[in-house]
């Protein structure tokens, strides 16, 4: 068959194409009127969801930045932040010194409790003008208060001088010692810790009483069996050990440990606190960074599954397409 005649065949197919039967036309015309309504479409919905997530993430970062950059209401009280307590005006240097000296006691920290045995550790760092004189004064004050010097480390060079004293001061005089050491110079740092030892002593006392009872009972007997003799010896050994332990605890509670560091060097310049704007950017950046890490983490976890799901979806669609074509090929 020639090409022209075959084209005519195709044209005939076009020209004689049947119209829909009237019955079908009536049926379709009778279908109730439908109005196109806005419905949730995947791509716009996805775009809105992404925009929403981004807005929430950005909003959280901005809110976090704003709240983080606001001045803190609660002030962390540090023991004797010397530089902060320094006089802000030249006419009140002595008032500031007194404030610094009182600082530990205003916090309600009662040192040298008479009713309970406590171990007290005091650490102070002071800047002094004359290192030698300040060191001698510290030693003198310690001895006058009934204490002693456990160790001393003194050294100077052209630039600076340092002296580190390990002192022991009777607990009754801890407050006096702190006050006198404070007069030696400007406090750069101070730390006081108190550990209760009374509970340990009470425990030892109870065990001692029990063991002494055992000893008294056994010693009251006229004759002792071998087992009783062994028990008596063990009880005596335990009493000796407990007594040593109690003595050790009492020694710890009798003297406060002072670590006094004297230096001629000025404290490092206080770092300029970041402004509200810098803090805002810093906090917002931190939150954004955390969000980015979260998103990355989710992508790493979900990614392989999403790829597998997409592959399965595409595979299923291809399989279905082939099956449909095969069905149509088989259908005459």
């Amino acid at each position: 068959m020639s090409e022209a005649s075959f084209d005519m065949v195709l044209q005939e197919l076009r020209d004689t194409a049947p119209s829909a039967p009237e019955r079908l036309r009536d049926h379709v015309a009778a279908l109730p009127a439908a109005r196109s309504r806005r419905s949730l479409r995947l791509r716009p919905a996805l775009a809105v969801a992404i925009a929403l997530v981004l807005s929430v993430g950005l909003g959280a970062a901005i809110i976090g930045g704003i709240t983080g950059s606001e001045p803190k209401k609660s002030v962390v009280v540090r023991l004797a932040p010397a530089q902060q307590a320094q006089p802000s005006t030249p006419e009140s240097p002595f008032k500031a010194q007194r404030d610094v000296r009182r600082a530990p006691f205003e916090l309600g920290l009662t040192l040298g409790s008479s009713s309970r045995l406590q171990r007290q550790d005091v650490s102070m760092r002071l800047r002094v003008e004359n290192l030698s004189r300040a060191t001698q004064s510290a030693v003198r004050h310690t001895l006058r208060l009934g204490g002693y010097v456990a160790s001393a480390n003194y050294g100077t060079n052209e630039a600076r001088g340092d002296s580190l004293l390990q002192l022991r001061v009777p607990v009754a005089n801890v407050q006096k010692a702190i006050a006198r050491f404070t007069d030696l110079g400007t406090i750069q740092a101070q730390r006081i810790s108190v550990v209760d030892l009374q509970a340990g002593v009470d425990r030892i006392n109870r065990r001692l009483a029990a063991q002494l009872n055992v000893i008294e009972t056994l010693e009251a007997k006229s004759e002792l069996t071998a087992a009783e003799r062994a028990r008596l010896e063990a009880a005596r050994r335990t009493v000796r050990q407990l007594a040593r332990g109690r003595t050790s605890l009492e020694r710890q509670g009798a003297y406060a440990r002072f670590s006094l560091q004297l230096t001629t060097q000025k404290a490092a310049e206080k770092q300029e606190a970041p402004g509200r704007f810098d803090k805002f950017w810093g906090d917002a950046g931190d939150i954004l960074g955390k969000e980015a890490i979260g998103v990355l983490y989710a992508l790493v976890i979900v990614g392989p599954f999403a790829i597998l799901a997409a592959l399965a979806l595409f595979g299923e669609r291809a399989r279905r397409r082939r099956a449909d074509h095969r069905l149509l090929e088989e259908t005459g």
Partner: protein
Amino acid sequence: MPTSWPTRRRAVREQRSFADVAEEHLDDVYRYLLYMTGNPHTAEDLAAETFERALRRWRRFDPRRASARTWLCQLARSTALDHFRAEQRRRRREDTYHAEAVDSEEPVFGEGLSPAIDAAVRSLSAAEREVVVLRVVLELDGETTASVLGIRPTAVSTRLSRALQKLEERMVSDVRG
């Protein structure tokens, strides 16, 4: 194929009522189903079902993604495939084959169509008739046909070429016979 923003806006603006769209494309859908099934009664039933489906899904129709004709042809194809699958299951169940061929001497694929052409078209498979009706009778372009069939345009060209070749061979053999 992505459309530009003004084109999309125009498409949305020109969105018409379902009744208008159904009226305009009723013949196309019927012809498509007639060629696929080779049976006017089945084609009529499937066309009715197609438009009922279309009505239910009308709110999901997005003119920016495809024209109404393409969308209706896709729905018609889906309806026809469901029908063929059901028929296949029924045949397997009953273990008998009941051809839906029309016994009448009247041409199936168009009034006034020569019996030789009608017979030749009838001898094609549904898959071959499908691509012939879309490309030749409904005169859809390659892209749109590919969109309806869910295949690539090159595959459409291949299928069409084979179908026409087969049609030509059948007609030649009829003439000789």
